[in-house]
């Protein structure tokens, strides 16, 4: 069981959260070429190790969080409100 330290609610079990995927993916401009949209919709870095990702605290404060987590050890580094990252 992973404990995710929510900045509003404190450490909470992973079952309270919904995974939102890679946080580095940026929605392109609507007029961007197809290749950029393909990249945005389908392609991921999928790193083995440090991963910046989104989690929604669905059964808590309902904040979207940006979490740095290791995909091999599951160790969680920094956690911040996604809205503060300007994304």
């Amino acid at each position, binding site marked *: 069981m992973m404990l995710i330290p929510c900045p509003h609610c404190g450490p909470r079990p992973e079952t309270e959260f919904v995974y939102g*995927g890679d946080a580095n993916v940026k929605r392109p401009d609507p007029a961007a070429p197809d290749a950029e949209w393909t990249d945005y919709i389908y392609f991921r*870095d999928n790193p083995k190790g440090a991963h910046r*990702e989104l989690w929604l605290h669905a059964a808590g404060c309902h904040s979207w969080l940006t979490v740095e987590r290791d995909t091999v050890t599951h160790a969680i580094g920094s956690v911040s409100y996604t809205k503060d990252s300007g994304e």
Partner: protein
Amino acid sequence: MGGGRYSFLSLAKNALSGHKNWQPAIRHPEPKARYDAVIIGGGGHGLATAYYLAKLHGMKNIAVLERGWIGGGNTGRNTTIVRSNYLLEPNAHFYEHSLKLWEGLSADLNFNVMFSQRSVINTCHTPGEVEATMRRYNAMRLNGIDAEFLSADELKRRVPDINLGRDGSMRWPIMCAVSQPRGGVARHDAVAWGYARGADSLGVDILQNCEVTGFKRGSDGALQGVETSRGYIETPKAGVAVAGHSGHVMAMADIRLPIESHLLQAFVSEPVKPFLDVVVSTGALHFYISQTDKGEVLLGGGLDGYNSYSQRGTIPNIEEVTEAAVEMFPNISRLKWMRQWAGVMDMTMDGSPIIGKTPVQGLYLDGGWCYGGFKATPGSGWCFAHTIAHDEPHELNAAFTLDRFGRSAVIDEKGAGPYAKAH
């Protein structure tokens, strides 16, 4: 065949000499400086690819490069289910071809892969699920694939220990079921060993403890060779079959993939007397169950749901699967779990695999198997071998290209959209 051809006669001869004269099934050669092709990944898919390359396409100067030991990755981390119950045409034809190869595999390899066609049964729990499942099983029949419909009462006769939930003991009682009688299970390790022995006897070098650390490319961008932990190997062709770690290996060639790595767990209980002689799966409750030849109850569930390479899995999924299984099979409620494991799944963005060419000339990819890789082993190797030998896909894998994602030609069996964890 490595160690001679296995037969009743060879068994009798070795028994009479005290089983002291069996020969190793494969060689452990040193890497050569150059091969006509190398396969990266010594799991079922990679070994099958090498076997069919040597057997059907005459390529004998080839090698399989395996980071650890053969069959030590996802080939040994699955629930051994074999089926071809797919809706969409490319999937239906590909998996049916694979199932037909399974049916002749033990004889072809002269190695018993213990393929047992004991039926794969899917239960339906809601009207929507009944309709979607009926549609899929009717599509199978139109494609010439065996499919049967079972009423709840017929299911109960076929699987006496199942709880239909009519007494209110299940939140979603079983309404009916479907079956693919030719589906079943196989011995997963034997598949790797059988293909390895078959490939070895055709002259393929199987190089274990040989990790690929980089690709060498010429000024035109084409592949020239691979760097490995056992030295540089020159080769014009490399096939990557390392599902679970496809992104990790392809990144060495600067290729990004439409893939996330997720964990899929499975568990076995302590062994008990035989009570379940089919595979039962349920999409609504999200688990599948069978009983192994050793008597263990074997269960698997859905994904853990977030990127991971840990090969361990976490507790919430074990709880969820166990709850659902005990509801449908109350008689397993007092069994103890004996072992638990997790495989790293290449989850593609449309839930279907990739078998084909890549933007790098000479580099081929067989990956993105989501959680359906084991049953695909023979078909995957067969199609991948054709693709490598001819530098173009066979019609059976022509739809499974890497570039389909940019052409709006995705193969989304579930209609779940571009979310890796949703398939």
